[in-house]
């Protein structure tokens, strides 16, 4: 029987929306026990955001929330009032890892400074995910996903129009917010691995700006090292790539290596050009001529045709796939990338398992995202020893 890599690891999530929840989802999907704290009544921010089935907003049916919170136990708790604080600290005692996303200083205000949490649980690892980190002049700056993305430089690096009248762009969806959750998860697990050897927890300060900049670090460091400003560079001139319209959409070719160019000429079926471009000097000087040939050729082809013809010859090629095509594509299906998750309110949903297939400890999506407060009884009564009557009183008092 396949085991779970993080079986027995206890995670407390005091975070909302995308980055923090995605970070702890990654751990939950590998077998960690994650207790997610949500605000009584309102719940996680993501519950208010779609996509909703049939475009009917419902706190239990947000596609975003359901994706980011699989395999977690959900409780409601208001740690801002006395009884809530006391319970929060009991949960801290229970946890190996705390993942939180309060603005810098927010945890201190609640009496949850890392130093004091460490006193009650010296083994605790706390991962704080904030827009600009816990120190530095911008630490108190407000920053949503849009802002931290543009603070990381990627806006000028996406291959958009060189027309300076147009605004710099962010990557689509919640890409960078999710990537921050993934990045923070490495540091969190690193600390857990080290703790195994030493028994000692630590605090991890994860600035989203830093984590997003890290993705573009090769481009960013060109400026101080070579004086070159990488900004609004068209895709073709950057590294031997073309993103071209064809009869049914866009196709993307990469030809950084000579063998790729030769492969493309072969696919085009034009031996005359092949000979001409075999010469290194000619090729380097006439790259635009080459790009024109490719564009002409691609214009009349379909994406599937071009994709398969070029890939057969070893040319790195990609179809610009729509969301529909990602879901209906043979390759991930053959790899059993998606699983169906059955949610009591939202019904059946397809979710990805994970991009990494661990042979001994595969990722398993066994439980849908929790309903708001679904596991209050399990956590408060069975684990912390409160009675059902206590729950009634705590609910009336706005604690849970």
């Amino acid at each position, binding site marked *: 029987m396949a*085991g779970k890599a993080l079986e027995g690891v206890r995670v407390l999530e005091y975070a909302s929306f995308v980055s923090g929840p995605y970070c702890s989802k990654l751990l939950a999907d590998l077998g960690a026990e994650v207790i997610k704290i949500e605000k009584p009544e309102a719940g996680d921010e993501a519950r208010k955001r779609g*996509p909703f089935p049939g475009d009917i907003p419902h706190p239990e049916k947000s*596609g*975003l929330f359901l994706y980011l919170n699989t395999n977690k136990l959900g409780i409601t708790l208001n740690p801002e009032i006395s009884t809530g604080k006391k319970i929060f600290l009991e949960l801290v005692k229970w946890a190996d890892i705390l993942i939180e996303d309060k603005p810098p200083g927010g945890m201190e205000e609640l009496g949850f400074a890392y130093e004091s949490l460490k006193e009650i649980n010296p083994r605790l690892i706390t991962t704080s995910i904030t827009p*600009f980190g816990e120190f*530095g002049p911008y630490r108190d*700056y*407000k920053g949503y996903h*849009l802002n931290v993305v*543009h*603070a990381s*430089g990627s*806006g000028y690096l*996406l291959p*958009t129009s060189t027309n*300076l009248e147009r*605004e710099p*762009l962010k*990557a*689509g969806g919640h890409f960078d917010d999710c990537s921050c959750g993934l*990045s923070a998860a*490495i540091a969190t697990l*690193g600390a*857990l*691995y*080290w703790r*195994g050897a030493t028994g000692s927890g630590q605090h*991890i*300060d994860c600035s989203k700006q*830093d*984590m997003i900049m*890290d993705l*573009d*670090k*090769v*481009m960013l460091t060109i400026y*101080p*090292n070579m*004086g*070159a*400003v990488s*900004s609004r560079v068209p895709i073709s001139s950057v*590294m031997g790539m073309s*993103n071209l319209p064809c009869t049914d959409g866009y196709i*993307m070719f990469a030809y*950084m290596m000579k063998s790729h160019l030769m492969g493309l000429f072969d696919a085009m079926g034009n031996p005359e050009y092949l000979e001409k471009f075999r010469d290194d000097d000619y090729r380097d000087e006439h790259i635009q001529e080459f790009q024109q040939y490719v564009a002409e050729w691609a214009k009349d082809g379909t994406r599937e045709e071009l994709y398969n013809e070029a890939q057969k010859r070893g040319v*790195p090629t*990609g179809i*610009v796939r*729509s*969301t529909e095509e990602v*879901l209906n594509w043979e*390759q*991930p299906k053959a*790899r059993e*990338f998606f699983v169906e998750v059955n949610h009591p309110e939202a019904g059946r949903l397809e979710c*990805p398992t994970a*991009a*990494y297939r661990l042979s*001994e400890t595969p990722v398993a999506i066994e439980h849908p995202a929790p309903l708001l407060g679904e596991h209050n009884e399990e956590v408060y009564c069975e684990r912390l020893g409160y009675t059902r009557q206590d729950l009634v009183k705590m609910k009336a008092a706005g604690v849970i």
Partner: protein
Amino acid sequence: MTGRVLEGIRAVEFGQFYVGPYTSEALAYFGAEVIKVESIRRPDPTRWFGSTGGPDPKIIILTDPNKSVGFNELNLNKLSVNLDLTKPKAVELAKKIAEVSDVIVENNRPGVLDRLGLSYEAIREVKPDIIYLSASCRGSTGPERNYAGFAPIFGSLGGLSEITGYADGPPAPPIGGRTDIVCGTANAFSIITALIHREMTGKGQYIDNSDSEVISCLVWDTIMDYNLNGRIQTRRGNKDDIFAPHDCYRCKGEDDWISIAISNDEEWRAFAGAIGNPDWAKEERFQDAYLRKKNEEELDRLISQWTISHTKYEVMDILQKAGVAAVHSFSSKDFFSDPHLKERGAFTEVEHPVIGRLTVMNPPWKLSATPAEIVRHAPLFGEHNNYVFGELLGMSQEEIKALMDEQVIY
């Protein structure tokens, strides 16, 4: 000083370009000893990519494997050895290195290392608890397993390119390596997971990673809209579904912009106050989030009229003081003069023996007890042949010399 989290872990990298190298670089940031295996017949191709620099940079092909700035950025903290893996003796030596290692990282096309005799099964025979990660464009199974790709291609196949770009423009496949590095991040995450499992059970494992699936996982909520509603989402610039303003606005200066995102009425009132309560901001059509989104085009035009008369730093300062999420769009230059990044130590310098002093980006996580850090420049080609073959494998200088003459260590 208490060391780094992966101290004592040794990884062998058969990597190229960005994904494999960043995977093991992340492990090396955390203190793992990473041995990069290359041959002059087939070095990491990034060693050959350089730039002319200057105002109109062009990619150039280098002739010296030790001069690439990009290679340095992706291979910090590592060691380099030379082995021509087309020779059986070299394969045996690679296995000997694996025998004293914990992790293998490779991002060749599926099947390449198997044919060389360095498959997971082959390594497991000499090192039963090895953790072996293979990363490829589509993963090592399925009908497209042999297809190749680079970062923008993962982005395109995974569903990101289609949803990135102007609403009226073509898809914008992400260049610059960001979609590679995010895959390397997912790889490193799965490797540390496997290390934790090995600590508990003594068992190693094989990890098969698909780069295009990493991308799909990061945009799944958008894909889910099709799953739930049959709706195919596409490009919409910087816009949000619900909130406005939510975009970049031009400021005074050349190609200077500020991102402004307002998510509730309180922030809207703070915004209006900060820009001096102009009459238009009091108009009915901007008074709640629904109306602002509905009249977004006009709202954007009016906001731009205000931002264009200020520098991006002025706008950021005025709006942040009022509690509005406004941050200027950082350009290449801004990173190196920005006081916040300076104080956080986002960048540091290394002394590269061939290229000279280089600025590199520090690891992005600040761990209080065991900092992830940069301790050395990327290795020169074959720089650690003596250490690895001599000290680690206990071979004599004569043996090493003979293998070099035979072009095994080559």
